[in-house]
């Protein structure tokens, strides 16, 4: 079997993220089915018009995935060069900048979500106002929490880069970016659900 191809995939970090992805998918599946059941069980379902800003937030999040990939590519190249020239990794260069940008975009996205909430609140739609708004807040809040987890992971990677002790944090970066992209996909799914069902 090809060892190189296997190296990142067989790293526990990556497996862990995949398992985590499974968990998160399952729990959001549970929420979705709860939503479907809830829609059927009561006659009190009122349509909620999504705040426009959600679409802008979506763009932010997609952009963050792009910057992350750019950063990752760049770092891989740097690490390859470092390996060739046999020098320790320096905590600098565009790769780090890309990663920082990704974190910033992620935080911007969450800020945008908060603005969306305030928009709803201004329209008198709170958590308990009606089932549709229940699910809006539940979905967005939980996704936001999970995304903060991604931000933390990237922070950890940057810290590892600064330390630069136990070699390049390849596995960690791979795992973190896998998780980050999953957050994108999850959000697109949620947006679809909210846009169609709410």
């Amino acid at each position, binding site marked *: *079997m090809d*060892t*190189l191809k*296997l*190296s990142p995939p*067989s*790293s*526990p970090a990556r*497996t*862990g993220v995949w*398992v*985590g992805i*499974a*968990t*998160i998918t*399952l*729990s959001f599946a*549970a*929420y979705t089915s*709860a939503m479907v*059941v*809830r829609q*059927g*069980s*009561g*006659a*009190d*379902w009122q349509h909620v018009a999504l705040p426009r800003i959600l679409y802008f937030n979506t763009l932010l999040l997609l952009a963050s995935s792009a910057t992350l990939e750019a950063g990752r590519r760049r770092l891989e190249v740097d690490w390859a060069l470092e390996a060739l020239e046999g020098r320790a990794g320096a905590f600098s260069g565009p790769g780090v900048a890309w990663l920082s940008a990704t974190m910033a975009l992620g935080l911007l996205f969450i800020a945008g979500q908060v603005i969306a909430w305030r928009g709803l609140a201004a329209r008198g739609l709170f*958590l*308990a106002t009606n*089932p549709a708004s*229940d699910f809006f807040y*539940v979905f967005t809040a939980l996704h936001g929490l999970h995304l903060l987890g991604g931000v933390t992971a990237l922070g950890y990677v940057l810290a590892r880069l600064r330390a630069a002790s*136990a*070699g390049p944090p390849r596995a960690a970066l791979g795992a973190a970016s896998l998780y980050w992209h999953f957050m994108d996909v999850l959000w697109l799914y949620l947006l679809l659900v909210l846009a169609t069902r709410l």
Partner: protein
Amino acid sequence: MPDTPAPPAVGLRETVEKIRVLKHVPPTGFLRTHVFSLDHKVIGKQYLDLALVAVLTGMVLSWLMRFHLAYPDVAIPGLGRLAPTRAAGGVMTPELYLSLMTMHGTIMVFFVLTTAPFAGFGNFVLPIQVGAEDMAFPRFNMMSFWVTLVAFLVLLAAFFVPDGPPLSGWTAYAPLSAIGKDAGPGQGGGQTLWALSIAIFCVGQLLGALNFIATTLDLRARGMTFMRMPYSTWAWFITAVIGLIAFSVLLPACILLILDRVAGTSFFIPAGLVVSDRLQPHSGGSPLLWQHLFWFFGHPEVYIAILPGFGIISHILPVFARKPLLGPKVAVACMAAIAFLSYTVWGHHMFLSGMNPLSATLFSVPTLIITIPATIMVLLWIGTVYGGRLRLTTACLFCLGFISVFVSGGISGFFLAQPSIDTYLHGTYFVVGHFHFVMGVAAMFGIFAGTYFWFPKMYGRMMNETLGKIHFTLTLIGVYATFMPMHYLGLAGNVRRYSAFTDDYMKGSLPLHRFITAAALFTGAVQLIFLVNLVWSRLRGAKAPDNPWQATSLEWSVPSPPPFDNFGGKHPVVAHGPDEYGRTGPEGDFVMQAAPTAGGTA
């Protein structure tokens, strides 16, 4: 899963391992060594100690309940002082009884039957059995334990809120659990704490399951192919997968329940409910939604409790029968099949919940089918006993006891799996007897077997076999005397979750209830023998050799107790299957998995 050699990439693997070894230096200082330890062995012991505290708590609660059932009017000394409002003068009020019942069920199911066999033994043994230095994510592993501990403390806190602990049972059916204090004493703060505790618990177990899966998939030693993994490891791995799914669903359910309680949402509360003369400000929710979400977790939870037992028995029985388990592949396949089927049967808890009667049949069939792999497992164990040279150590006896009680508990499932009979037995003591046998006693026997078996490895000392055998014999008799009569009560239509049997047709059951109470108290008292043995052996037990049982799996090839990194910096290479017994090897009638000589595999 394909039977592929796990560690293919040598060069990279070495570097990866170097990094891991670098990171894996033993901690210094008491806190990092014994309290906030990243060592899976310490964490495993911590889980087991937590389970021990929990099981003692739950047992005391059950004594109080049983005493009250037998003598409803007799005051329990001191109880009046413990619960002045709920047991004025020492006589238990109905709400106190139901609270004890709720806490007993919750503590036992979550904090004993989930923590001990899975998180406890799994944490200690699994990494060694697969030849790893630790779990894949030691920090998550540590978090997993401390989060679980927090969950336990949050649950216990319910005892101290003014309103008292909740009384809605461990299943916390909505809307009783969702409405709030109008529904009765304990349904205020106590119930909220319950939901919070379970939500936290889910997080802890998810972190644990994550570790078990990643460790089994990625950290197996060289040569440790899937089919060379001991059955216990298989069971923990499969359990981790079940747990991952189950707790990923229970967590959302608990979050929604908390929102219904504190944020005024209506996920589980329909419109037009009048509780204690108050029209509830909710509308449109669905109580069945809670039942579906809960039982989608709840039935697999039964297997989370029992599958590790399957693995432990399948692992220990060959050791003491001195012959391989009958049909290794079949055993693994059965465990996998049970795991899969466990997700197709949750509806059998809801035959009478007003669900479509047709779907009842659809849930009944897989429930009955699940008995096929279970029966096969039993036959494999019995067939393994056949023709063996049975060394009847305490651990072995508990394995045999496990088979006996599992059969007894499993067979009563035949009745409850059929809607047409369940419609008579559903809410009766028949069910209580059934699940206590199959997930209570059987799982406990698995835990006992594991304890007597792995104790030497954990603490470097042997447990006292004489005490152990007395403990086993009396326990076996005790549990049968306690739980078998519950089936008779159930047949007679004796209803469960009653704090007293005032109804005319149930008064007749009182004598039998007194017998059960006596048996329960006896069985409980017998456990003191186990406690004494546990404590005494931990301090004064005979020093344990590395491999006291002449077993083959990797944990017996390392010192007792094992060093911090389990293998002293070496990396074991596995050349043999898990139960190479009954054949001539270098050290006797067995061949260690890590034995250097290349030989046939199981």
